[in-house]
C-alpha cells in the first residue's frame, strides 16, 4: 500500500503516511548527544570497578592529577558531600529495602562496572589515558552472584545495613490453589531460567551537564526518555531550585527502557560540572554500556498449571526469584520486574485459583532496570509453555485449549486473580485471524510429515496482554515524582503553519509523527505544515516522556484536545472576519470553508496574519487565542489494555542444536492505529528483540561476578540475516473511553514474541520428550536438553 507524502493534504488518522522529520536522519544530519560540543567543554571518563564486590582500601590519584592534560580527578567520597544519594524504595511497598546509592562508589563496590573515580580532561581520549595512572588498593570480597544463593541462610549480605539480600517479597493468593492442584486431572510443572540481557541501544547513554555559575542554573543535554524525570532528579539531588534546572533530550538513538532509568553516575557528571563551573560531557563507550546500562531479566521461575480433562485451566502457580543486581532503582523500582511478572501471569486466561510469590534479591551484578515489557514477557512465555504442554498431555489442540480458556470479550472489564485490570480486549478474534493468516492446519500437516523424515519443526502460539499508558495509580502512591500526564501546545504561526510542542519524547518510535498526523487530521492541514518540538523540560507541558507505551495514547489524546481547541478559536475568528456564524464554517485544505457551499471563505494564513499583526481590524473585545495548551491523563482506568496473539514457526537442527526461524505472525489489538506504517515496524522491531532474547542474548557472568562478554562480538544480537519476514495484522479496535481511541504498541511485539518462540521450540522437541528451560536457547542448551531426555 502506498504511503502518503508529508506534503499531501487530506491526511486522516489511520492513513499510512511517511514520517516527517525522518529525512533529516536519512541525510546524516541527526543531532545526538555524541555530536554535540559546548564552548569550554571538558570530558569525563570513569574508572570502573574491576571487581564484583570489594572494599576500597585506598585510592591514590596523585599520579593522575599530576598529568598536564588532566583537569581534575574526583573520588566517590569527594562527590558524596555535594549531592543526595539515589534510593530505590517505594512508599506504598512496605518492607521494600534498598541501600542509598551515591554517584560513585564510596567505601565498597557492589558490581563490576560501578564507577569509582572520575577523571576530567580536555578530551575523552586524554581522560581515558589518565585512568591508567590511578592506584587503587582493593580488599576483594567473595561476591554473591545467584539470586537463589543470595536467599540462603548464611549467605553473605551484600549491603550490611539491609540485614539480608531480599529486597522485597510479594505474594498473591486467590481462590484455593492447593485444593485445585491436588484435585486436578493434569498438573504440569517446570522450572524456567531467563538469563540476563541488556537493552543494547545502538547509541550508548550520554549527557552534557552545563552548570552556569553566572545564573546558577544547570542545563543538561541528555540522551534520555524523560527530561522531566531528570529535571526532578538533578534539582532534588543537587539541592537546586527546580526552576533553575533544564533538561533537553536531543535526538536519542534508541531507548527501550534503558534510558528511562536514573543512573547515579549521570548525577556525578552534573555534580562535576557544578564543581568545575564548566560544561562536562560523558558518553559511555560500548564496554561501559555493557557493564553499566541497567540490565534486564535474570529470573529463576518455578511455575505450574492445573488443567481438567476437558481442557479448563483450574489453577496457576508461580514462584519467581528475580536477581535485581546491586541496588534498587531510583523512582522506577526494579522490584517491578517480578511484580509485573506475577501480577500478569496467566492474565489472558480465565481461572480463579492462583498462588504466586515473587522475591527480588540483591546480588553483586549490574543493576536490573526497566526494559521493554518489564517482567510481562516472562509470565506470558511461562504460562503459554505450560498451556501447550498441558494440551499435549490431555490430547487437545494448542489452538483449541487457548480459545477455550481465553477471557471473553463480553467479560471485560475484569480484574484477574493476579490483580491485572483488563479492559476492552478480544483475544478470540485475534486468534481466529492468526490461525487463518498463518494457515495453521497446513503448517501442522507439514510438521507431521517432516517429523517422519527426521526434521523437527515447531509451531508456537502465544497470547499477550500489554498494560499501556499507566495513569497516576501506578507511580503516584509510591511517592515517586513521575508524571503520568502529557500535554500539547499548538500555535498557529502567521503563515498558517503550526508548531506543536509536546511533552512526549521520541526515541525512534515515530510518536511525534503520529501526533502531527492527529493535528493534521483535525486542522485539515498537511503534515509538512506542522513542526514538532519536544524533549525540553522547560518548554512544553510538564509530562512523562516515553514510558509504558504511552506516547500515541496520552500525547495523542492531548494533541487531539489541543487541535480541537485551536480549531474552535480559528473558526470563531474566521466567523468574525467573514461576518458569518462559526457553526456554519469548517476547516478544509489549509483554510476555512462554508459548510453549505463548500466555498473557501478564508485561509489559515489570513487567520495567522490578522491574528498576529492586524488585531486592529477585529472588534476590540475579540479575544485572539492562537496558542492553546491541553493535557491528558489516564484517570478513568489504571491503564489501557493492548493485547494480541503471535505465532512462530521454526526448525530445530537436532544434530547442531541450531534453531532456524521459518515464519512469525502477529495479530495485534493495539487500539486505533494512527499510522499503520509506524505501528507495523514498531511491532516487528519488538518481535525481533524478543527473538533475540530467546535465541541469542545473554550477559554472561562467571561465579566471581565477572561479565565475560561485554562486546558486540561476544554478545549475540539479532542481525538481518537470521530474522524472518514477519506478518503483521493490526486489529483496529478503538479504546472506547477516549476520543482518539489509541491504546499503545511499544512493548507488544517483544512481549508476545518471547512466548511464541519458547512454545515453538518446546513443540519442536516434543518427539524427544525434551524441554529447553533456559533462555537464551543456545545450541549447547538445546543439545543438552535432547541428551538429558534420552538418558
Amino acid at each position: 500500500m502506498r504511503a502518503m507524502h508529508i506534503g499531501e493534504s487530506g491526511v486522516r488518522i489511520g492513513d499510512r503516511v511517511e514520517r516527517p522529520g525522518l529525512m533529516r536522519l536519512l541525510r546524516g544530519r541527526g543531532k545526538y548527544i555524541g555530536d554535540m560540543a559546548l564552548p569550554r567543554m571538558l570530558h569525563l571518563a570513569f574508572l570502573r570497578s574491576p571487581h564484583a564486590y570489594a572494599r576500597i582500601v585506598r585510592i591514590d590519584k596523585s599520579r593522575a592529577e599530576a598529568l598536564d592534560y588532566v583537569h581534575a580527578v574526583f573520588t566517590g567520597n569527594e562527590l558524596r558531600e555535594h549531592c543526595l544519594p539515589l534510593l530505590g524504595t517505594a512508599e506504598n511497598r512496605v518492607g521494600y529495602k534498598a541501600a542509598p546509592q551515591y554517584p560513585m562508589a564510596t567505601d565498597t563496590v557492589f558490581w563490576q562496572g560501578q564507577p569509582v573515580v572520575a577523571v576530567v580532561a580536555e578530551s575523552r581520549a586524554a581522560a581515558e589515558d589518565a585512568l591508567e595512572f590511578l592506584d587503587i588498593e582493593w580488599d576483594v570480597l567473595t561476591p554473591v552472584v545467584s539470586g537463589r544463593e543470595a536467599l540462603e541462610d548464611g549467605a553473605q549480605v551484600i549491603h550490611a545495613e539491609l540485614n539480608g539480600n531480599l529486597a522485597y517479597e510479594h505474594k498473591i493468593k486467590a481462590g484455593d490453589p492447593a485444593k485445585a492442584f491436588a484435585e486436578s486431572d493434569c498438573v504440569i510443572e517446570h522450572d524456567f531460567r531467563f538469563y540476563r540481557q541488556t537493552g543494547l541501544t545502538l547509541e550508548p547513554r550520554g549527557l552534557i551537564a552545563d552548570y552556569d555559575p553566572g545564573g546558577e542554573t544547570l542545563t543538561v543535554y541528555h540522551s534520555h526518555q524523560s527530561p522531566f524525570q531528570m529535571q526532578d532528579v538533578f534539582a532534588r539531588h543537587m539541592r537546586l531550585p527546580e526552576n533553575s534546572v533544564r533538561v533537553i533530550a536531543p535526538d536519542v538513538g534508541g531507548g527501550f527502557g534503558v534510558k528511562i532509568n536514573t543512573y547515579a553516575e549521570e548525577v556525578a557528571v552534573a555534580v562535576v560540572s557544578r564543581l568545575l563551573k564548566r560544561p562536562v560531557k560523558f558518553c559511555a563507550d560500548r564496554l561501559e554500556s555493557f557493564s553499566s546500562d541497567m540490565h534486564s531479566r535474570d529470573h529463576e521461575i518455578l511455575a505450574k498449571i492445573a488443567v481438567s480433562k476437558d481442557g479448563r485451566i483450574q489453577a496457576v502457580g508461580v514462584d519467581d526469584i528475580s536477581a535485581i543486581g546491586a541496588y534498587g532503582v531510583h523512582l522506577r523500582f526494579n522490584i517491578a520486574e517480578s511484580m509485573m511478572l506475577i501480577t500478569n501471569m496467566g492474565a489472558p486466561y480465565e481461572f480463579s485459583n492462583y498462588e504466586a510469590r515473587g522475591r527480588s534479591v540483591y546480588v553483586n551484578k549490574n543493576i536490573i532496570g526497566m526494559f521493554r515489557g518489564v517482567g510481562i514477557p516472562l509470565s506470558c512465555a511461562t504460562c503459554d509453555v505450560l498451556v501447550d504442554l498441558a494440551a499435549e498431555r490431555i490430547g487437545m489442540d494448542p489452538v483449541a485449549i487457548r480459545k477455550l480458556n481465553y477471557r471473553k470479550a463480553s467479560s471485560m472489564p475484569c480484574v484477574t486473580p493476579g490483580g491485572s485490570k483488563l479492559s476492552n480486549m478480544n483475544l478470540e478474534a485475534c486468534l481466529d485471524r492468526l490461525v487463518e493468516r498463518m494457515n495453521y492446519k497446513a503448517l501442522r500437516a507439514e510438521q507431521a510429515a517432516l517429523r517422519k523424515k527426521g526434521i523437527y519443526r515447531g509451531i508456537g502460539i502465544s497470547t499477550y496482554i500489554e498494560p499501556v499508558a499507566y495513569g497516576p495509580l501506578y507511580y503516584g502512591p509510591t511517592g515517586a515524582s513521575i508524571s503520568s500526564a502529557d500535554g500539547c501546545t499548538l500555535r498557529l504561526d502567521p503563515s498558517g503553519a503550526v508548531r506543536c510542542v509536546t511533552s512526549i519524547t521520541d526515541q525512534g518510535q515515530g510518536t511525534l509523527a503520529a501526533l502531527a498526523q492527529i493535528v493534521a487530521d483535525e486542522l485539515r492541514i498537511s503534515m509538512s505544515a506542522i513542526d514538532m518540538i519536544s524533549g525540553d523540560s522547560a518548554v512544553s507541558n510538564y509530562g512523562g516522556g516515553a514510558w509504558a507505551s504511552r506516547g500515541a495514547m496520552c500525547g495523542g489524546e492531548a494533541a487531539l484536545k489541543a487541535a480541537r481547541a485551536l480549531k474552535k478559536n480559528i473558526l470563531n475568528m474566521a466567523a468574525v472576519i467573514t461576518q458569518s456564524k462559526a457553526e456554519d464554517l469548517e476547516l478544509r485544505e489549509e483554510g476555512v470553508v462554508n459548510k453549505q457551499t463548500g466555498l473557501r471563505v478564508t485561509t489559515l494564513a489570513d487567520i495567522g496574519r490578522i491574528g498576529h499583526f492586524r488585531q486592529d481590524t477585529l472588534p476590540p473585545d475579540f479575544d485572539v487565542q492562537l496558542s492553546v495548551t491541553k493535557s491528558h491523563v489516564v484517570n478513568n482506568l489504571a491503564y489501557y489494555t493492548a493485547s494480541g496473539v503471535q505465532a512462530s514457526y521454526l526448525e530445530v537442527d537436532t544434530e547442531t542444536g541450531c534453531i532456524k526461524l521459518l515464519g512469525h505472525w502477529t495479530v495485534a489489538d493495539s487500539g486505533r492505529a494512527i499510522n499503520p506504517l509506524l505501528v507495523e515496524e514498531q511491532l516487528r522491531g519488538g518481535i525481533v528483540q524478543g527473538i533475540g532474547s530467546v535465541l541469542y542474548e545473554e550477559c554472561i557472568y562467571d561465579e566471581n561476578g565477572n561479565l565475560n562478554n561485554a562486546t558486540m562480538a561476544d554478545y549475540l544480537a539479532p542481525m538481518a540475516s537470521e530474522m524472518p519476514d514477519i506478518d503483521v495484522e493490526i486489529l483496529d479496535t478503538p479504546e472506547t473511553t477516549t476520543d482518539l481511541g489509541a491504546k499503545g504498541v511499544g512493548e507488544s511485539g517483544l512481549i508476545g514474541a518471547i512466548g511464541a518462540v519458547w512454545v515453538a521450540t518446546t513443540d519442536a522437541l516434543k518427539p524427544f520428550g525434551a524441554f529447553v528451560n533456559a533462555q537464551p536457547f543456545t545450541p549447547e542448551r538445546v543439545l543438552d536438553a535432547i541428551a538429558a531426555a534420552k538418558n
Partner: protein
Amino acid sequence: MADELSIALTVNGERIERDVKARQSLADFLREELALTGTHLGCEHGVCGACSVVIDGDVVRSCLTLAAQVNGKTVETIEGLSDRGALKKLQAAFLRYNAAQCGFCTPGMLVIAHDMISRGEAGDRDEIRDYISGNFCRCTGYQAIVNAIESVAKEEKAGVA
C-alpha cells in the same frame, strides 16, 4: 602523547590536509576534526556497522581504520553521499517504508545499501539480508529496510532493462 602525522585526503569532494595523532581513528577524525557527525559510533570495535564510510569505492568501518591510513585516499561519508544525490532513491524508499526509527544505524545502513545497489548485488530478499548482516539495527525488525532496498533494486533493474 602519540606522534602526529600529516595527511592529505579528499573527503566528500573536498581536499583536506591535517596533522593527526597516529592513534586517531578515521571515525574520530571525521567526527571531531571535520564535524561530520553523521558517521556514528555504535560499538567502536567493528561489529555494528554504524560507522561505515566509503574509501576509494569500498565500504569500510571507520572505527577500525586509522586516520593516518587514509592519507592520499578519497573518503565519502553519509553527508557527502547524501548531498551529491547518490542516496536519493534509497532515502525516498527508506521514508516510504519507514525503514528507520532512531536513525543511529541509518547512515551505515544507507552506505552499505548504496554499495549493494551500485554493485548490482541486491538480488532476492535473502541476499539483501545477507549483505546488510554486518549492520546492526536495534529498532526496526529489518523488514522495512529490506523492503526499501528491494524496491530500489527492482527499480534499478527495470531501468537497466
